[in-house]
């Protein structure tokens, strides 16, 4: 039994097949990378796993339990939490209140939620901004808030959608550190990322899709040498293969 298993996921939007017959298995404790060119269906796949969309066909199993078509808010209680590619801070609330709101998914007591939020913010390195309005944060910190908020729901599986997009090299460096730290806590991570440096360094395994179809899966080394991946996504210039 895999930790998370997607079986033959398909999603049509009208006549467009955004995701077609994609199957993947994610093991507990790994960082699972998802790559592909723009419009390949990575975010749609995320939306299917996190139940934002209901698949046209196929199933999603989480720890052996069929979670296909379950209500979005229930996914979170099961231990799956996602971040958004376009960050969605609760703008007119402070950073602390954002995280507290997320922490309430694990407790009903305000004091407990506050402790949980403070602990998570310290873990993610956002404590110094706790009283700032979320809408006023720069992009790097908004992305961090997105992760912090997701972590405050105490997920077992974290779905990160382009967390490093738009970050400068220093910020990406911090993001990598944070993601590794989260993994060391025992959280399984699925990550979508365009930044090859990040995804190749941190992923244990990578799954590549193009036009909604799976084209390759394996270690970063294997995937980056796969001719189909090079043709569809990486390009000839990406010369990291030793073969």
């Amino acid at each position, binding site marked *: 039994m895999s930790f998370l298993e997607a079986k033959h996921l398909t999603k049509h939007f009208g006549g467009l097949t955004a995701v077609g017959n994609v199957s993947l298995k994610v093991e507990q404790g790994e960082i699972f990378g998802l790559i592909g060119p723009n419009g390949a269906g990575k975010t749609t796949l995320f939306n299917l796993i*996190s139940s*934002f969309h209901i698949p046209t066909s196929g199933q999603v199993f989480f720890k052996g339990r069929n979670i296909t078509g379950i*209500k*979005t*808010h*229930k*996914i*979170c*209680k099961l231990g799956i*939490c*996602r971040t*958004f590619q376009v960050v*969605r*801070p*609760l*703008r*007119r*609330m402070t950073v602390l*209140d954002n995280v*507290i*709101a*997320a922490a*309430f*998914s694990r407790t*009903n007591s*305000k004091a407990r*939620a506050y402790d949980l939020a403070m602990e998570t913010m310290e873990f993610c390195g956002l404590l110094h901004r706790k009283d700032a309005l979320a809408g006023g944060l720069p992009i790097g910190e908004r992305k961090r808030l997105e992760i912090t*908020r*997701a972590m405050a*729901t105490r997920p077992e599986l974290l779905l990160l959608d382009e967390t490093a997009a738009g970050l400068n090299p220093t910020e990406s460096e911090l993001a990598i550190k944070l993601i590794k730290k989260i993994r060391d806590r025992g959280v399984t991570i699925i990550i979508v990322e365009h930044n090859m440096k990040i995804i190749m360094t941190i992923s244990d395994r990578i799954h590549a899709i193009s036009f909604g179809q799976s084209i390759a899966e394996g270690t970063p080394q294997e995937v980056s040498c796969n001719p189909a991946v090079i043709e569809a996504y990486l390009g000839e210039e990406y010369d990291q293969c030793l073969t």
Partner: protein
Amino acid sequence: MKKYLPLILLILLIIFPLIGRDDYHRHLMILVLMWVVIGTGWNIIAGCTGQVSFGASAFFGVGAYTAGLFSFKLGLSPWWGLAVSGLVCMALAFPFGWISFRLRGPYFALVTLALGEILRHIATVWESLTGGMVGILIVQTYVSKVPYYYMVLALAILSVVGVKVIMGTKWGYYFLSIREDQDAAESLGINTQFYKMLSLNISAFITGMVGALYMVYMGFIDPKVVFSLHDISIMAILVGIVGGVGTIYGPVVGAFIMVGLQEFFRTGFFGLFKWLGAVTDAQAVKVAAKYVSEAHVLGFGILVVLVILYLPNGIVGDWGKIIGAFIPRRKKEVQR
């Protein structure tokens, strides 16, 4: 100082009937307090949960008719109607919310507007039940206004304190999260449908209660008065906007200002125009005096434009800004 302001206001309100001995002032204060309740009811669903509603009149009217019909049709005391009016309104809010909360933003607002209008027509057309345009007339229980004053004061305190307590708990955080971003809220494990329903039901409950209180206090209602779009629904929104959307004491401040402004215009600037007309004997002033008493809507319009331009968070929300305009602020020390 600011911390004690609500407490001072509360004490003043409690001893008010001792100071304001004349019925006119007492009546005005009862109206203000009613608007505090309606404004708070609007604020919890629209200001805190972000589901802008034009439906205050629907719940106000249903509350009022509940009390009225208890006396008119069942021959019971209208006070029984007051007791159950909140529950009746929740019984209405439940199916209504269930159906219409799949809509968002302006579409939801339009449905609430339709709800009020539909109920107004039902109350007008269903003559065998409601008496139609003739309305319902019941005998008031007390001659003095003081008992009514304390009842509506109790309801106002209950609703404001209730909202204050709720906003400090999980419910409050969830309401705000839904206001800010429904999809993000959903991803954080918030059952948005459930919490929107909760918010609407709280709002319906207190608005219905005050509607019933209006019935027992005024002794007369008709569909045009209690289901009025601009006198109830829009006014509720204005109270919220002027006072401060999403603030706890906003509707309190808003109610004082809006009722005050309405009265200011209704009496022709407290009799100023009448006096001017008598003194100057000019035809123009006399004509103006006739029209100014109906110009309160114009006054509301100007006030709302000014508030939105200069105090977008309302008087309570932008309190610091107002103070800052009068008192030169000391340089704030930069915190690091």
